[in-house]
């Protein structure tokens, strides 16, 4: 009875950042339905949304995400993964039907509207996991492991150095005691 596969697991579970540059076509469907709900104001709502859909470009690189859209007034938002501090995944009922979700990404800026909202990615949960793995605080363990190993390396070097000094001193002591 519970169709968990349709809701929790995206159709293709892997998210390929380098291939995700355009929102999925179903986003246009979603925009269309949203606008249609406004009845006679349909064109008023749909034309800007269509322009947004048509010009929306995502770019996921090693450091961050860039989101561009706009025909007359262009906007480009770039934010680095390391600055992400809250990820909100929101799906309303329409989005769930279509299989979409919007991911709002927050950094520590002072406004309540999200810095970037990523819409039109079917693998929303995988994308969230992708961001989660890169956001600040999530790589804590890795960082400490690296830190520990580099610390160990330094400690080993220091220990070797100290051992050398001790051995040299021991030779000196031997020699001075022989002289005496």
């Amino acid at each position: 009875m519970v169709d968990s596969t349709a809701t929790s697991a995206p159709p293709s579970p892997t998210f390929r950042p380098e291939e995700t540059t355009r929102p999925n076509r179903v986003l246009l469907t979603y925009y269309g339905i949203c606008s249609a709900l406004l009845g006679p104001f349909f064109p008023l709502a749909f034309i800007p949304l269509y322009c947004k859909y048509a010009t929306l470009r995502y770019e996921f690189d090693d450091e961050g995400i860039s989101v561009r859209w706009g025909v007359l007034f262009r906007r480009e938002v770039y934010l680095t993964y390391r600055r992400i501090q809250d990820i909100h995944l929101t799906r309303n009922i329409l989005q769930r039907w279509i299989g979409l979700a919007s991911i709002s990404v927050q950094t520590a800026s002072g406004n309540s509207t999200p810095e970037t909202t990523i819409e039109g990615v079917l693998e929303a949960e995988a994308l969230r996991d992708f961001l989660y793995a890169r956001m600040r605080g999530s790589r804590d363990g890795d960082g400490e492991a690296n830190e520990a190993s580099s610390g160990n390396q330094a400690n080993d070097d220091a220990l070797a150095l100290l051992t050398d000094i001790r051995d040299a001193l021991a030779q000196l002591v031997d020699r001075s005691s022989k002289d005496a």
Partner: protein
Amino acid sequence: MSKHVDRACEWVYEGTWGILAAWFKVPRDSPTLPAAAGETIEIRRPDVGFLRYLTLQFWIGLAIIDLLLTGLWIMLLIAVPWLGIIITPLAWALIILPDIAAYVALHLRYDTTWYVFSDRSVRIRRGIWTIQETTITYENIQNVSVRQGPLQRYFGISDIVIETAGGGGISADGTGALTGAHVGFIEGVSDAATIRDAMLARIRATRSTGLGDERACESSRSATAHWTPNQLQRLTEIRDLARALASS
């Protein structure tokens, strides 16, 4: 009698859930967090006390509104009898139907609220029509506060408000849950103090202020500040040898 009522309630409840899951794609299973090796994931729901608290709120609201509506209807019945009789079905529908909806809704609200704690982050899911999942890593948390009202104290539950950097304000949605761009709201847990302390311990453990300072610049300091036991032993040996050399 009450057994039948219970069974009917369960049937209605399961049916509602079936419709929600099949048609409205409400996930019935819990959210998860991607876990690293050795990371513990704790999936929780609000405490049972939260359900009782919501139920009490519901009964109080029901008593007030229904008394008011019934009073109005009776007044109308006395003042203009024919109109009162005509609108009887409407009045009773107005009195009863919202109650049933509200009762089902509060159970569903209880069922669709999930908290997932991992060693680094917390994920909160809530909502039925609009499902919102918030993920916050402990490193980004600025403050954690615990709130408890008198009724909540009676039921032994409290709410935890997690805030991260950045403003935007906090607002309460229709159900009383706090929402905002930089806020996580964990409501109706019985061991709020424990959760808060565990979070604060993890916040302290991360060393950064959660404002984007990179750990690389502060890790080197602490790594070189401490001698290992082996190194201390070597140093002691060197001191002893130097003394021997000096005294000879």
